[in-house]
């Protein structure tokens, strides 16, 4: 932890839900959840069919846990968490990765941006913020993804595949993730563009570790992702 995260004001905390999709993250999820609890608000972990006791580790803390009976993918886990948060009456929903690469302190800035700019989506951008230790291959892939998204969706953002984002209830109700795997990030952007609702980008910090890099997108995975998006576009 680089710094002490700012606590969300109490009047906002009850209306804020943080969705944490997790798959086999029993080692790293503890630190991420501790950070979220320091920030405040409600937390729901979506255990996406883990086999390493991720849910048990999460349940040691005062949060909600929902468990997929099988591994469906991060997109499916996010949608489950968003459904759950909406059912619970969430007014602001934040998505946050379980591997500890996000800074819990950024949550306050994201939600604040929603309120200040009257926006429905606040997307974290590591290229507006900081991403120390980002490998050049990852940097290049993410830059290519930005160009590809601009061509395919017509949406202009600086970071297309960042897992930390915030949305209002109205924004979340417009999102319906059907691509279960990592393609969901592009699908969310397409749905944001289609919704016509206001979007802002917020500088965030991404902390790369050996663990998060090992689980992150590989080059071959990125090309598979692009191919699937293309096929999906043809199907529609």
């Amino acid at each position, binding site marked *: 932890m680089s710094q002490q995260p700012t606590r969300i004001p109490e009047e906002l*905390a*009850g209306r804020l839900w943080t969705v944490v999709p997790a798959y086999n993250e029993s080692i790293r999820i503890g630190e991420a959840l501790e950070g979220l*609890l320091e920030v*405040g*608000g*409600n*937390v*729901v972990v*979506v255990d996406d069919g883990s086999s390493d006791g991720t*849910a048990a580790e*999460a*349940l*040691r*803390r*005062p*949060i*909600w*846990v*929902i*468990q*997929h*009976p*099988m591994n*469906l993918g991060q997109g*499916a886990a996010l*949608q*489950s968490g968003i*459904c*759950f948060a*909406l*059912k*619970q*009456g969430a007014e602001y929903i934040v998505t946050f990765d379980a591997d500890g690469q996000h800074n819990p302190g950024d949550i306050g800035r994201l939600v604040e941006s929603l309120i200040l700019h009257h926006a429905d989506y606040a997307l974290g951008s590591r290229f507006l913020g900081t991403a120390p230790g980002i490998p050049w291959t990852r940097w290049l892939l993410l830059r290519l993804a930005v160009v590809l998204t601009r061509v395919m969706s017509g949406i202009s953002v600086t970071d297309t595949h960042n897992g930390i984002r915030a949305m209002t209830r109205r924004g979340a109700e417009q999102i319906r993730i*059907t691509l*279960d795997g990592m393609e969901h990030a592009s699908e969310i952007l397409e749905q944001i563009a289609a919704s016509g609702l206001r979007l802002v980008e917020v500088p965030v910090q991404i902390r790369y570790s050996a663990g998060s890099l090992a689980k992150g997108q590989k080059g071959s995975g990125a090309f598979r992702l692009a191919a699937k998006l293309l*096929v*999906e576009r*043809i*199907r529609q």
Partner: protein
Amino acid sequence: MNTFQWFSIPICVGLAIVAFVRRRALPGRAPGMFWVLLWFAAATVIAVPQISTLVARWAGIGRGADLILYVAALSGMLIARYLYCRQRRMEILVTELARREALRNAQRGASPAGYGPNPNSHGLTFEPDDKPE
């Protein structure tokens, strides 16, 4: 007749007969008859390859072999698209089913001594009967 024709024509005719017998199992008359006609046409073209050349010339392609190649490629693409759409529908259904099950069994984490009263509860509960979106 060559060896290929000896093998393939009886297979196609047999499949046409099976399709004819089982055509009532499919909803509507058209799908059942489609398979009967398809297998019968295949048997006919294999038995008399000149038919494909006649059709190809009529269609402006020239060679019967080219016509067969084009039809096979087009059919392959259509079948691939059909199967992909079907698989996507199944994937979406399985995900939705798993999600409903997961939401029904949402669990609340413990409030260990170190945490004291749960500061994040806000008196919220998730009813098992709640239907997800």
